[in-house]
């Protein structure tokens, strides 16, 4: 089994390395190269040459890539030509904000999705199931940004009960901090809650029909124990895997939600660096998101291997 995990780690490292090439390649595929874009204001060849010199764009591409990779590995990601702040510093400031938003949304989604999925699965095809499934499908169809706009319209503009956006750091009081996070958390968590509900429902229906559940019932176990401990315990494996795979969607959501609620996180940084053509920052932010995604996938894979005994013995061809 440790061999299997080692293999997954190696694959993740290779994927990450390929990702750095993609990010680097994308930025350098710009017509005229990033130097032209950085000195867009002047057509002066001397200014262009100076920019080329300053950022090392006149060196051969592979050499530039190796240099950038060195910067990535040393934790320095270059300096933003727009703000003159090191990219690593900018990322450091914004990571906690995005993480808070992401973790709160995930908690909200689990708190809503798992019980709803269980309730639907206990009596499949009946009214509870029908209502929960339809509402979940509605949640899947809801565009984050519009849900956010509606929330602002209702709770900030009309009812004045919640702030319309912005971010208050923890130093500004935990109450204020959380108050500003309520709407973004609900908006970002709803889609994920829908996915979790659907997965929980499907896995629970399968588990409730399994032999071990019949055995548990035959032993005279109480129904709530059968449902919430035996069946749910076994269903969570599937749910965790699918949720891990869904995090890509959560990332897209983070960017839009940060934009709608004006939260200074990684998503806003990424968008701003596109609008301002700030390539070092863009490279750093995109790489960070891709790395986060690969690491989450790796962790999901490893968890799955650990909890699923069947994967410990049989090793099938390609990684799926």
């Amino acid at each position, binding site marked *: 089994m440790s061999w299997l995990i080692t293999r997954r780690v190696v694959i993740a490292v290779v994927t990450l390395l390929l*990702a750095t090439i993609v990010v680097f390649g994308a930025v350098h595929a710009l017509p005229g190269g990033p130097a032209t874009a950085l000195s867009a204001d002047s057509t002066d060849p001397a200014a262009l040459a100076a920019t080329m010199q300053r950022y090392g764009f006149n060196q051969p591409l592979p050499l530039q890539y190796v240099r950038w990779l060195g910067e990535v590995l040393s934790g320095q990601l270059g300096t933003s030509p727009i703000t003159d702040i090191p990219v690593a510093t900018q990322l450091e400031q914004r990571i906690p904000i995005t993480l808070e938003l992401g973790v709160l949304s995930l908690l909200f989604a689990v708190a809503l999705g798992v019980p709803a999925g269980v309730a639907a699965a206990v009596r499949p095809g009946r009214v509870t199931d029908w209502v929960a499934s339809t509402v979940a499908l509605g949640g899947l169809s809801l565009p984050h940004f519009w849900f956010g706009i509606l929330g602002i319209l209702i709770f900030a503009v009309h009812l004045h009960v919640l702030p319309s956006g912005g971010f208050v750091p923890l130093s500004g009081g935990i109450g204020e901090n959380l108050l500003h996070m309520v709407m973004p958390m609900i908006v970002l968590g709803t889609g994920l809650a829908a996915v979790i509900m659907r997965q929980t429902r499907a896995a629970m229906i399968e588990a409730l029909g399994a032999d071990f559940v019949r055995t548990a019932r035959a032993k005279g176990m109480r129904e709530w124990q059968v449902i919430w401990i035996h069946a749910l315990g076994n269903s969570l494996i599937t749910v965790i895997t699918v949720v891990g795979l869904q995090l890509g969607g959560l990332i897209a959501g983070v960017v839009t939600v940060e934009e709608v609620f004006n939260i200074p996180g990684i998503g806003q940084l990424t968008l701003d660096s596109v609008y301002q053509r700030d390539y070092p920052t863009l490279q750093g932010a995109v790489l960070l998101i891709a790395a986060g995604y690969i690491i989450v996938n790796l962790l999901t894979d490893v968890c799955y291997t650990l909890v699923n005994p069947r994967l410990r013995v049989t090793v099938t061809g390609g990684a799926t």
Partner: protein
Amino acid sequence: MPAPVSARAAARIVRAARVRPRFATLAVVGAVGSLIVVLVAIFGPLAAPYNPNAVSFNLVLAPPGTAHHLLGTDQLGRDVLSRMLYGARTTLAAGIVSTLLGTAVGLPYGMIAGYFRGPVDMLLMRIADVMLAFPFLLLAVGLAAISQPTLWTAVLALGVAQVPAIARIARGATLEIRDLEYVQAALVNGESDLTILRRQILPNVLRPVTVQTTVAIPTSIVGASILAFLGLGVQPPTADWGGMLAQAQQYLYQSPWLGVFPGVAIFLTAFCFNLLGDGITDALNPRGRR
């Protein structure tokens, strides 16, 4: 000789309808709703009362119900109903075309990986893994950095982002089939790899891929509107539901309805396609949710 796939699928839909009448009703509602949206996208512009880009500064931010402007006008006095009708075309086209693009690339990609296995499979799937690490939004961000964002860069980003998922499904289905006797028989018969892929493998891979494709369309529709909203897709003044919402954001205090109509339209469209997709998944994939 087995019955044609469509006839068997129809029979399964009928059977599923008998087992789970409520869900089947929803699937029909979804199908009708999706059809209506598609018809609006095709014929809506013909029915639009005004040119969607006709500016009229005498009548800006008119509320819904104003004479001659059923849904009111926006900040430039443009007729909201006309923009909604034209916007249906842009939004829907982006969602559907990108999904077709993703399928057109992902299907052969996954089939080749599954059919040849070994190093080819390893290489192709690692590349797919890397692509999976870049959600569509990052791809769109990258494309917007390289060139000016347009409807087509949005379609490209949304389409490319779907390739890995479709490729994985096609690969899995191919792996299941490629060792079956009839494929071996064709191999012994001396048929070329291309012929086997096309005649023996493709028909069996199409079903799971169709399921994935129907499920992906509503996601792409929402995705396209997100990109337009962020300014990474369709650019103003082209009418698009996501773009309309982006502009409405500045006028929410005076004219909240500008932020309501396009959003409701995106939501209902995605909802209908999701209902339809669920129905098709149920019907074509009997092992799925029941």
